[in-house]
């Protein structure tokens, strides 16, 4: 029987692992994320944090274990539906050529839905980019591009937000702006969130709980301040 309580678990991993050749990227990772909870995954470079996040989004295939999303084994969920539910924001924004509005409409468009102008304006308001809809993405700053990336992911109405070092490619001023924005969004929308960061301070500011990874394994987990100061 599973030793973890599954009450209110939106996301749950069981003995999740990935081995490529003779290299273990993620090993025997078991944790759960409750609805509305923000969990930080911290650890040194090469600890397997980003690899774990890619497994959660199923951009890579686990070689052992699995992930349960709202109680369902994610291997039974069609990849497009799974990835819409677990929205991911990457370190670099990778915006598609065109306008900001085109980017925001990309995800819903994949399901045949058209985002209205009002919905686009609403999303841009949430990320502090009012009036940016018609701007070409080629003319955005790094911080603005990352805000568009966040809005584009939110346009899919995910149930969990996966953030992979969302501010590490930004300058200090943009970093604080985007971090504040993420805090507001997560708090206002009660979004369940898993954030990968190497910045312990950022983990403490954003998350309530933290997992510390080393060599692909979780070595500590619990209350963010207790774990990070252990």
């Amino acid at each position: 029987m599973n030793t973890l309580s599954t009450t209110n678990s939106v996301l749950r991993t069981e003995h999740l692992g990935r081995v490529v050749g003779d290299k273990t990227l993620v090993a025997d990772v078991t944790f759960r994320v409750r609805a509305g909870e923000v969990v930080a995954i911290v650890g040194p470079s090469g600890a397997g944090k980003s690899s774990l996040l890619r497994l959660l989004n199923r951009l890579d295939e686990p070689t052992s274990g699995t992930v349960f999303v709202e109680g369902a084994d994610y291997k039974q969920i069609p990849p497009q539906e799974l990835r819409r539910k677990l929205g991911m924001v990457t370190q670099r924004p990778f915006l598609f050529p065109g306008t900001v509005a085109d980017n925001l409409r990309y995800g819903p468009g994949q399901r045949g839905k058209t985002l209205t102008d009002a919905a686009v304006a609403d999303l841009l308001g949430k990320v502090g980019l009012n009036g940016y809809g018609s701007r070409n993405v080629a003319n955005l700053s790094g911080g603005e591009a990352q805000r568009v990336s966040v809005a584009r992911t939110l346009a899919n109405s995910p149930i969990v937000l996966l953030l992979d070092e969302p501010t590490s490619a930004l300058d200090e001023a943009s970093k604080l702006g985007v971090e504040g924005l993420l805090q507001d969004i997560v708090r206002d929308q009660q979004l369940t969130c898993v954030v990968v960061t190497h910045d312990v301070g950022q983990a403490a500011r954003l998350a309530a709980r933290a997992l510390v990874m080393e060599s692909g394994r979780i070595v500590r987990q619990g209350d963010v301040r207790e774990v990070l100061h252990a």
Partner: protein
Amino acid sequence: MLKWLFHDQLQLGLAQSAAAGLAAMVVILLARKRGIHLESDALIAMVRGLIQIIAVGSILLILLRAPRWTAVFLLIAMIVAAGATSARRAQGIPDAFKVSAWSIACGAGSVIAIMTWLGVIDTAITALVPVGSMLIANAMNTNGLALNRLRGDVLAHVGEIETALALGAEARSSLDPYVQSAYEASLIPAIDSLRSLGIVWIPGLMAGMLLSGARPVYAAVYQFVVLAMIFAASGITSLVSTFLIRTHLFTSAEQLLLQPGR
């Protein structure tokens, strides 16, 4: 000058090959100076090409007396060889040989079959094999260009492709921009050949027809016919290969297989 030195046709041919090979060597050396290493690839290709064309020339001599249906087997063998050659331009893409061979068979094979049925290509083995080989060779080049360009674009845009997947795009549609540009790029040589026909170059087939006594206007028109067939064969090949290869770039769970360093 070589004609004064060599009176025997075979000796002259070998001397001419050496002269042309020397020009190619200069290119290889110039490329090497710039840090581009074509040595082994280009040398092997030249030696192989020379041996192959002499072998095929000898086979053609035998085939002149063979029944017409033997041409079909020769063309199929050419398609398989063309598939293997152009698949090398798609390193790391699973089943590149299978996709290449099928694509060339669809592109060049269908054009050869239809044009032979219509009487555009003569069924005589001496016409069918050389014209067919031209279509297969060009389809092979187009296929190699398309797969190589697609491979390069995918490797350069892994972030964009995985972002599209992460936003709920289907694997196939996440590649749309790169498939389109690979298709367009692969057809540039065929389009330029058509565009510059008679202005920049007068192809050998036309010269051969003129020498064998064909009317100049018919020889010229037939040259256009050949280039149009090449364009059709290349276009279908590239369309089929870029369509088929997309499914081979992903796992069944729509995860991108082609990754830098993997």
